[in-house]
């Protein structure tokens, strides 16, 4: 064997070569740049152009932002400090306005010694939504979820603890009627009773019950008027409330729109189309102006409450259409499969149709959530002091008149954080719920 090899070739390598580095053009950053940034002449030109634009924008804004002044009592003071530090007329931001008016931008006119209450309410809110948002959280937290709406309401507005308790009692009544009534009077009557009885209770009895309980055992914390609520607290209250309420309402409306029952179908279609076809700002003006004419002078039907109701209606009309899209995307076979298993309507919806339809609708649902949260800034036009409203109020003082970009950049950044978080969560949820095989 060795002879034949020795004669058939003049040279044979007997050891392996050590591994060589790949050529510089085929490795690391250079390869990445060649592939992604300079793969062709057009691409190279576009890359250079983009780099120049980014440089241009950053060179004009980065210094302005980073060298900004944080400690001053007014715009003129800011300018004096700047002249001292960087010389006359240098372009730097005056972030001091945020430090000076931080409380107002966050809490509005809420009493300063009570700031812990909305902060605690926000904390409770996060605990309450945790079991809904994440699977690996203790299921026991659902108890917190159940009482959180009432607790948060009580913490933010204060007053007697018996008011939220009396309201919560309505839900207990509804549940009890549904739970125990179906055995006695049948499922349909129990369902109707579970809806009607709590409403009657809220309209006629809840106020008396709350006052009565308060008279027996007066427990309460300082009451805070809705007028005192402003800034991001207001935006979050309106946004979160309408997002949470619009979701179930939207599902009901979407199912109603697909229903075969004539009245339910047509009233859902009417509600959705009317609410959705009119701009939100018109509904807000309706809430703040038109309702006032119907109410007698001196009636205190809270403006904030009116606005929340309108925003919720608006959001649920959009939500209904998004979810209807999900329902329509589901193959007919799924509905038929549910029927063939002998499931009734609610069972088939709950077990088969809605889980799939909602999964399909996630991007649309989150889109609506984000849109509604940003739309809360429209309340400035009906005289509520949301962050934009406060930016006007702050500018209206002689101290800060003339400040512009700093406030808007800050407000924009805060909204970005909230909306980006929502968007990221929805992507996480989509990945988690993905069942197809890729």
């Amino acid at each position, binding site marked *: 064997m060795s002879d034949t090899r020795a004669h058939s070739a003049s040279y044979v390598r007997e050891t392996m070569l050590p591994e060589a580095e790949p050529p510089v053009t085929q490795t690391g950053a250079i390869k990445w740049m060649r592939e992604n940034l300079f793969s062709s002449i057009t691409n190279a030109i576009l890359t250079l152009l983009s780099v120049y634009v980014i440089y241009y924008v950053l060179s004009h804004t980065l210094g302005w932002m980073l060298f900004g002044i944080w400690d001053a009592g007014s715009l003129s003071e800011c300018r004096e400090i700047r002249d001292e530090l960087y010389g006359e007329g240098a372009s730097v931001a005056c972030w001091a306005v945020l430090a000076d008016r931080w409380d107002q931008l966050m809490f509005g006119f809420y009493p300063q010694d009570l700031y812990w209450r909305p902060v605690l309410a926000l904390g409770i809110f996060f605990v309450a939504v945790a079991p809904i948002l994440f699977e690996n959280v203790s299921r026991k937290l659902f108890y917190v979820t159940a009482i959180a709406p009432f607790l948060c309401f009580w913490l933010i507005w204060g007053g007697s603890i018996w008011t939220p308790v009396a309201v919560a009692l309505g839900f207990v009544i509804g549940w009890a009627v549904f739970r125990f009534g179906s055995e006695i009077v049948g499922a349909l009557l129990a369902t109707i009773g579970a809806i009607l009885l709590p409403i009657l209770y809220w*309209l006629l009895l809840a106020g008396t019950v709350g006052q009565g309980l308060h008279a027996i055992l007066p427990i309460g914390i300082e009451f805070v008027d809705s007028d005192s609520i402003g800034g991001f607290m207001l935006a979050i209250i309106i946004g979160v409330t309408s997002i949470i309420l619009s979701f179930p309402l939207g599902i009901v409306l979407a199912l109603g729109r697909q229903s075969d029952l004539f009245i339910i179908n047509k009233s859902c279609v009417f509600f959705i189309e009317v609410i959705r076809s009119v701009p939100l700002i018109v509904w807000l003006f309706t809430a703040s102006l038109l309702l006032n004419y119907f109410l007698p002078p001196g009636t205190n039907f809270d403006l904030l409450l009116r606005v929340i109701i309108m925003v919720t209606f608006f959001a649920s009309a959009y939500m209904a259409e998004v979810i209807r899209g999900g329902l329509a995307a589901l193959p007919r076979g799924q509905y038929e499969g549910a029927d063939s298993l002998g499931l009734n309507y609610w069972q088939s919806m709950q077990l088969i149709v809605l889980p799939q339809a909602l999964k399909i609708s996630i991007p649309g649902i989150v889109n609506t959530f984000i849109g509604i949260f940003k739309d809360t800034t429209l309340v400035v036009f009906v*005289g509520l002091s949301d962050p934009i409203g406060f930016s006007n109020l702050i500018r209206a003082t002689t*101290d800060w008149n003339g400040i512009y970009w700093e406030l808007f950049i800050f407000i924009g950044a805060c909204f970005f954080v909230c909306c980006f978080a929502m968007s990221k969560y929805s992507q996480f949820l989509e990945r988690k719920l993905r069942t197809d095989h890729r």
Partner: protein
Amino acid sequence: MKKSVLLGTLTIAGLVAAAGSAQTLDEVQARGSLNCGVTTGLVGFAAPNASGEWEGFDVGVCRAVAAAVFGDPSAVNFVPTTGQTRFTALASGEIDMLARNTTWTFSRDVDLRFEFTGINYYDGQGFMVPRELGVSSAMELDGATVCIQTGTTTELNLADFFASNNMSYEPVPIETNAEAQQQYLAGACDVYTTDASGLAATRATFEDPSAHVVLPEIISKEPLGPLVRHGDHEWGDIVRWTLNALIAAEELGITSANVSELAAGTENPEINRLLGSEGELGGMLGLSSDWAVNVISVGGNYGELFEANIGEATPIGLARGLNAQWTDGGLLYSPPFR
């Protein structure tokens, strides 16, 4: 609870709305505080300070009325209203009075069924230009680009002024005063026009105020004053004479510093009548006899309010001008307290 209020009230709304207009004073006293409509922020006239307390010239009027009714200037709920919501808020009873630099016009007084109870600031529309343009009169503005807030009377006044002087202009429509400041500073327009008080406040915020001049021409009459609903004359009288008390106090030399001393009684019978040591003027209004003392001890007389909020000592630096007492060549003239 609130729903029951809503439903119940919807049914009786029509009945009550007709009859319920004549007892604003009773309602205010029962509530324990005055609901006063103000702007959603206007420099010098109404704005909350860093600790959330409202300050300003219009706010001073609200506090004076609260002091007249309750003897307590802090018994006021300030309700921020926008240009769109202000009149509805007043008409529907959400607020008891509106002190929101609102121009007194015929149609607002007559057609909208409000009652202006006086004038607390005589304003007028003016022009501001960069000094480097070398313009010294509004008559030289032919062909200029003008930043103008849309949907306001200033827009109409501007069109009238240029048309009647046979000049042309190019409008740059803007929405808010803050936006106007940015546009004007960025050079998007040669001229910025709005009420002269607004121009002064805007100019005061510039890096170099001396680089900009406010032209001498005032092209419109903008008498600003507090207003109440038609039909409740007792309440209107209280607001009217509170404002008159502020004006008369300046004329009579009553200040926040000497009011308590003068209230004990003086040689001047008009001062005595105003401050309640003689006669029963307070009782005629349905208020206590020392109502005017309370009004004046809040922020002082009209002149003191003016100087503290928008006068020459403040960054806004407005001169009294038309808003001086009639004895000093201005238009302020309170009817006698008799």
